[in-house]
C-alpha cells in the first residue's frame, strides 16, 4: 500500500537520501538574509495551532536569540544550559559573582557597587554590528559610548625611551610626520612611476604637509598633535622633541596597536551596554517565558527520522526530551565528547575546529589615578605580556573604577593560565607599575578570566584557521544535520568571539528553519 507522503516527510526523505546539501538547496534562507545594513525583522511564520518542539542547547547569545524568536511564533522551546548561569561568554562580574574556572574557582571581590563591574567576555560594540544593536533596541537595553582609542593614554615598551611610556598621540603624530616627510621628499626627487603634472605634485605636497603637519619647507619638526609638553592655554605651548626614527621603528607600536581603530570592529566610536554587557542577557531572560534549565548537561544527541532525542542530566536525574529541532551552541570542541549520531561529515567538520582562547584580568582601583594623567577611557598598549590596560569610560570622576589589567590573545593566554589566580594578578600588577607610577598600590581587588579553563567553555570561539577547513566545512555546519540539528553560536560565523557572530548564526538558522516550515505548509516566503 502506498502511503501519502506529507511535504515534511518528503523533505526529510530528501535530506536522508541526498545528505544535508540536498535539503539545503530547497532552503532559501541565505538568499533572504542580509549580512550588512539594517536588520530586517525576521518575520518568522507563526505556527498557530501547530505544535513544534525545540531544544536549545546553551544559553548564550545565540541560544537565547533562538529561544526568544521561536517562542514568540508559537514554538515549544526548552533551553538546556550546562553551567550555573545564563549568558555564555557574555559574562559581567560584580561583587560576589563566581568565576567558575576549572580547579581555581574565584569569587569576585569587588566592592558591592553597580559601577564596579568587569566585562570578562564581549566588551565593545561597534556601530556596524547591526544585529547586536537591533536586539538592544528591541529589548530597550541602554548603550553608551565607550572610548577604545585614547590619545592621552600610553604606548609602553620597557626597552625604549628608558622604559617610560609615551603618549599614543605623540607616537602617532611622529610616525605620520616621518611618513609625510618621506612622501614630500619623494615628490622633490620625482620618485614616482607615473609622471606627475605640476598640479599633481602640488596636491601631493599639500597632502603630505597636512597628513603629517609638516613645516612649510616639507620637514617634520614636531606638532601640537603629539600633545603639548607644556602650556598652550595661558602660556606659550612647548612641543615635545621629535622621536628619533630608529626608536620609532624599534618600538613596534606600529605593528601592535597603532592602527587598531582602523579595524572596523574597533573603530571609534564604540559602544558598551550601560551597567555591564550582560544587560542584553538580563533583557533576554526577562523576555523569554520558555524554561531555561541551568546545570543541565547534555549526554547525547540522536537524530531520528521524525525527531531528535536529547538526553541530559539535571538535578541528579537523567532525562530525555524528544524534539522536532535542536539548536546547538555547545562549543564544537566538546562535541567529540558527547555521544551523537550526527552524519559523519558533519562530525568531521566539528572535529576540524579547535578552540580559540582569550585571557583577561580586571582590577578594582581604589582611586581613578589615570584621570589625573588626563586619561578618560581608552587603553594603553604595551609589549609586556598584559598587552593592554583599559580605563573605564563610565563613572568619570567617581572614587573608584575597574580597569582591565591584562588582555592576552589566543596562545598568549597559556602563560597566564599556568599560574594560580594570585600569581596572575601579581604579575599583571608588576607590569602596570612599569607604566603608571604606584599602579599596584591602587589595586584593591582583582579577577582573572582564562576562557581556556572556564567550566563548560575550555576555549573562546572556534579556530577555523587550519588550511581548507573553512572551505570544506563552513557551509555544511551552517546547515541543519538531518534537517533538524542546527549548530549555532559565534563559532559558526566569520566573527568568532564577537556577539555579532553569535546573533548572525542564530539568524541563519532561524531563517533556514522558517523556510522549511513554510515549505512544509506549501508556502514560499515573499522575498
Amino acid at each position, binding site marked *: 500500500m502506498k502511503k501519502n507522503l506529507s511535504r515534511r516527510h518528503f523533505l526529510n526523505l530528501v535530506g536522508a537520501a541526498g545528505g544535508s546539501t540536498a535539503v539545503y538547496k530547497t532552503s532559501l534562507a541565505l538568499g533572504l538574509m542580509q549580512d550588512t545594513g539594517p536588520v530586517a525583522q525576521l518575520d518568522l511564520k507563526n505556527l498557530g495551532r501547530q505544535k513544534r518542539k525545540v531544544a536549545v542547547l546553551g544559553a548564550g547569545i545565540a541560544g537565547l536569540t533562538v529561544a526568544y524568536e521561536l517562542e514568540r511564533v508559537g514554538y515549544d522551546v526548552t533551553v538546556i544550559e*550546562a553551567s550555573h548561569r545564563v549568558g555564555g561568554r557574555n559574562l559581567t562580574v560584580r561583587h560576589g559573582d563566581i568565576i567558575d574556572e*576549572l*580547579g*581555581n574557582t574565584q569569587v569576585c571581590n569587588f566592592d558591592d557597587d553597580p559601577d564596579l563591574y568587569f566585562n570578562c567576555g564581549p566588551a565593545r560594540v561597534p556601530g556596524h554590528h547591526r544585529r547586536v544593536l537591533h536586539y538592544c533596541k528591541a529589548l530597550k537595553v541602554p548603550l553608551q559610548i565607550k572610548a577604545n582609542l585614547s590619545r592621552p593614554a600610553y604606548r609602553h615598551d620597557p626597552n625604549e625611551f628608558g622604559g617610560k611610556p609615551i603618549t599614543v598621540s605623540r607616537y602617532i603624530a611622529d610616525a605620520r610626520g616621518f611618513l609625510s616627510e618621506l612622501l614630500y621628499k619623494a615628490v622633490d626627487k620625482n620618485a614616482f612611476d607615473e609622471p606627475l603634472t605640476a598640479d599633481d605634485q602640488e596636491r601631493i605636497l599639500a597632502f603630505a604637509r597636512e597628513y603629517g603637519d609638516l613645516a612649510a619647507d616639507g620637514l617634520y619638526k614636531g606638532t601640537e598633535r603629539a600633545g603639548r609638553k607644556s602650556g598652550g592655554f595661558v602660556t606659550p605651548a612647548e612641543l615635545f622633541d621629535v622621536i628619533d626614527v630608529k626608536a620609532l621603528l624599534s618600538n613596534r607600536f606600529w605593528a601592535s596597536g597603532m592602527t587598531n581603530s582602523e579595524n572596523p570592529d574597533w573603530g571609534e566610536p564604540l559602544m558598551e551596554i550601560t551597567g555591564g554587557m550582560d544587560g542584553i542577557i538580563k533583557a533576554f531572560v526577562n523576555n523569554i517565558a520558555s524554561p531555561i534549565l541551568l*546545570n543541565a*548537561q*547534555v*549526554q*547525547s544527541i540522536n537524530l531520528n527520522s521524525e525527531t531528535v532525542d536529547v538526553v541530559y*542530566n539535571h538535578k*541528579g*536525574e*537523567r*532525562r*530525555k526530551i524528544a524534539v522536532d529541532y535542536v539548536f546547538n551552541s555547545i562549543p*564544537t*570542541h*566538546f562535541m*567529540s*565528547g*558527547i*555521544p551523537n549520531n550526527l552524519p559523519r561529515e558533519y562530525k568531521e567538520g566539528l*572535529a576540524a*575546529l*579547535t*578552540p580559540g582562547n582569550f585571557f583577561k584580568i580586571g582590577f578594582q582601583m581604589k582611586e581613578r589615578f589615570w584621570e589625573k594623567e588626563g586619561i578618560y577611557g581608552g587603553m594603553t598598549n604595551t609589549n609586556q605580556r598584559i598587552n593592554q590596560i583599559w580605563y573605564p569610560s563610565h563613572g568619570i570622576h567617581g572614587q573608584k573604577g575597574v580597569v582591565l589589567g591584562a588582555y592576552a590573545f589566543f596562545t598568549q593566554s*597559556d602563560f597566564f*593560565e*599556568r599560574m*594560580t589566580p594570585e600569581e596572575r594578578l601579581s604579575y599583571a600588577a608588576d607590569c602596570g607599575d612599569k607604566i603608571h607610577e604606584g599602579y599596584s598600590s591602587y589595586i584593591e581587588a582583582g579577577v582573572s578570566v582564562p576562557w581556556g*579553563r572556564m*567550566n*563548560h567553555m*575550555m*576555549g573562546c570561539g572556534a579556530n577555523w584557521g587550519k588550511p581548507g577547513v573553512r572551505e570544506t566545512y563552513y557551509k555544511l555546519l551552517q546547515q541543519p544535520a538531518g534537517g533538524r540539528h542546527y549548530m549555532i553560536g559565534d563559532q559558526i560565523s566569520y566573527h568568532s568571539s564577537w556577539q555579532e557572530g553569535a546573533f548572525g548564526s542564530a539568524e541563519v538558522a532561524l531563517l533556514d528553519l522558517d523556510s522549511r516550515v513554510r515549505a512544509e505548509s506549501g508556502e514560499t516566503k515573499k522575498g
Partner: protein
Amino acid sequence: MKRYPTRKLLGLVLLFSSLASAADEPPVPPDEFVYCTVCHGVQLMGNPIIKAPRLSGMDAWYVEQQMKNFKKGIRGVNPEDPYGYVMQPMAVPLTDAQIVAVAEFVEMTVSPAAEVTISGDVDSGKAHYSTCAACHGIDGKGNEALGGTDLTPLNDWYLVTQLENFKNGSRGGNPGDIYGMQMRAAVQLLTDDEAIRDVVSYISTLRND
C-alpha cells in the same frame, strides 16, 4: 585485587541508581564530578579534540595515585607536557577523600571502547610488548602489586603521548614518582616513534570490550 571495599561501591551504586532513570544505566555524575566530564566527555568517554583521554573503566587505585601526583606537582608541571598542565590544577584543591571518590567515580563510568586511531605494525608491537607485559600483564589489564595499570581502557593517541612524555622525562622524572621512574627506564627500550606506534597498535588489539 581491588582495595575498594564492596560495601562502599554498593553504596555509590544505590545512590546513582536512585537518581538515574533506569537502574542499568551508567551513573549520573554528582555535581562535583561534572567538572571531569567537561573535558573528558560524557561518561569520561574521552575527547581527542582537546586531548582529554578516555578514563572510563580505569583502575581506581591508579587514578587515585595519579591524581595525588598531579596534586603534589609530581605530574603535569613540565612545559613539555602541555595537556598535563591543563589537568594539574584540577587536583590541587581536592582532599584525599575527594580523590578517592573521584577514582571510584572514574571506575564506574561506562563508555564505548576507545577508537583505534594509530596504525602500526602489530607483530613488531607484540615483540616490544613482551617487556611491558612484566608489569602490565600479558593481557594488558595491569597488575596493581607492580604498579602497572590496565592499559586497555586508554586511547591509543593518549598512550603515544604518555610514552613520549616518559621518554623525554616530562613524566617519570620526579623522584617522588617511583612507578613513573620505572616506566621512564622501561620506555627507553622503545627507540623510535615507529616502535611507540607499533606497541600502541598491539595494545589496541588487547581490548575486548
